[in-house]
């Protein structure tokens, strides 16, 4: 796949992992701070990359600053390894590092993701790097950065609760579909990046390290392993995930994974399929050989 398409990049003229070592070190320092204060948004000097801002440059800078020669990298976009953006980022990483890439979630040491957490549970040796478009969870109620920084500092989250309350009054339920705000380590309200509600429980007391990078907005934040992450909810309006009752993947038959719908090319009919393509393919492989996969 690699090295065919872009004939213009002379790799030997670029540093391992594209960024220079001083910048990588600085980003790692910011990551350490983020890990030390779970859910807190650490400002960092976001660099220009050969990818447009808003297309995953935050995640890419984290990946570039962490990746070593022995790492095995997996990139997913909306759960899919073969999505154009994922393939494109992978191409750049391979070109500037030469590291191994994989689609197998178990194999990967660093997984960079856009909008999904893999279906299978990650382990202590894995890092999940999120590409974050909007790091500020309070942005929906407060457009000013100065003001939201103050609100976080003072743990002044009343407005957020009022927003959720008003949402229930107006619509009968909380309408936030993705980027559902969470409270990290009982201190900071955090934007979990645009993952569906389905993935929110996976953040709580997880074994893996979660790193969040927002390149355009110049923020890094983290959820370290074994950290409490709770979705905001009321006693009488509990958080709940997407409902796929009665539906299953038309490919692997899974009924307990996040499904996306699509319209059949020929018939125009609607079908469902796993968003996590790696999970789906593994299930399919095991199904064909007759054993269980989870």
């Amino acid at each position, binding site marked *: 796949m690699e090295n065919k398409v*872009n004939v213009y990049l002379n790799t030997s003229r670029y540093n391992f992992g594209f960024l220079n070592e001083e910048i990588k070190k600085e980003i790692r320092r910011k990551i350490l701070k983020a890990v030390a204060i779970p859910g807190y948004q650490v400002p960092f000097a976001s660099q220009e990359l*050969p990818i447009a801002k808003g297309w995953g440059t935050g995640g890419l800078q984290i990946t570039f600053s962490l990746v070593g020669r022995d790492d095995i990298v997996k990139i997913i976009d909306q759960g899919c390894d073969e999505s154009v953006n994922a393939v*494109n980022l992978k191409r750049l990483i391979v070109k500037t590092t030469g590291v191994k890439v994989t689609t197998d979630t178990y194999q990967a040491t660093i997984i960079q993701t856009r909008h999904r957490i893999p279906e299978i549970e990650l382990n202590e040796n894995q890092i999940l790097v999120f590409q974050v478009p909007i790091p500020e969870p309070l942005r929906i109620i407060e*457009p000013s950065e100065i003001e939201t920084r103050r609100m976080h500092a003072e743990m002044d989250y009343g407005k957020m609760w009022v927003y959720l309350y008003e949402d229930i009054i107006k619509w009968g339920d909380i309408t936030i579909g993705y980027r559902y705000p969470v409270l990290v380590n009982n201190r900071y309200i955090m934007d979990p990046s645009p993952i569906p509600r389905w993935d929110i429980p996976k953040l709580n007391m997880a074994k893996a390290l979660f790193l969040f990078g927002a390149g355009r907005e110049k923020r890094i934040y983290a959820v370290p392993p074994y950290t409490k992450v709770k979705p905001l909810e009321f006693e009488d309006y509990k958080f709940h995930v997407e409902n796929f009752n009665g539906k299953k993947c038309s490919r692997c038959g899974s009924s307990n994974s996040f499904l996306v719908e699509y319209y059949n*090319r020929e018939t125009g009919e609607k079908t469902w399929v796993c968003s996590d393509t790696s999970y789906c393919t593994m299930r399919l492989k095991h199904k064909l050989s007759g054993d269980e996969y989870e």
Partner: protein
Amino acid sequence: MGYVAVKGGIEAIENAEKLVHFYRLKGGSPLLQIQQIVDQLRFAVDKVMGEGALYCPEYAALAIKQTEGDLIEASFLLRSYRSTLSRKYYSLPIDTSKMRIIRRISAAFRDIPGGQILGPTRDYTTRLLEFDLMNEDTGSASKYIEELLNQIKIKNDFQDSAIPSFPKIVEYLKREGLLIGSKKSDSQIFDITKEALKFPCPRSGRLQILARGETGGLLALAYSSMRGFGDIHPTIGELRVGYVPLIIPHPGGKGTLYLGEIMVTEAEIIASVKKDDESVPKFTLGYGLCFGHNELKAICMAVLDRSMMSENPKNPAENQEFVLYHIDGIELSGFALHYKLPHYVTFQAELDRLRALQQEGGFKNGEQS
């Protein structure tokens, strides 16, 4: 030497004009041909046609050549030329489902009937300077074309095959009752070239102003809404680029006339939930369509179209007045640049006021005595 009042305006202007030509030509390199600009500065041409509100690649290219690539100035030339043309007919609404597509994507669904077609996009290129272009020659260019055409095996029967049809993604959502459909109105469209802007501005007028707005202006306002001064949460239902047929009612009153085709970019964005007439929550839709290949503009236009429908406008991008008065590059730049004109009289009046204030308040030389 005593003060000499500035005179001789005509001579100064004429000399400035001569210098403009001189500055364009003084390098002595081979002169840009209009066709080169049409072929190789495709996006500049499309931008100028959109903002100049006249579909004419040759004249847009001419304007770009004449203005040395100053695109707002080039749009200005095109728009003022447009005033010299009589406007005889309104075309029938363009049916974009008949589009001869070169690019078509959906960010809402992974797989769509007809498929995702990336077409000629720079979205996934790594933004690195291609130094080889510095030494590009016609030999290597024609070799590249030949190899590519061989590779994709353009067949001779290409023209005979029917143009595949691409169903509109938002139609599926409408069918399922998930989307508020736009209301068809029988009323005459509001023509912004013939009437002054009024508020609330009908949607047809809003879309026209957006369609010829300056791409950067649209971007800044749409981005403010995406980033936090707004609550739209756009998802691109579908983005299409391609050629559409242009049809007018037959001047004789019988049937229709096909004029030819133009290239357009169309964006349909699915946006935040609203209740419809029966109080059922549904998605809303924002729409963008502009001349040529300009995806940034079509997307920002669709975002602003939707944000201006907000029931209780709070943010700049939701306020019709704010958006519609502040996105026309030609109007804006004209005013911003007029400050270069002499303001001797008005400034004299201000000087007088300031001096009076200083004296009356017992101030002297800027300090209080």
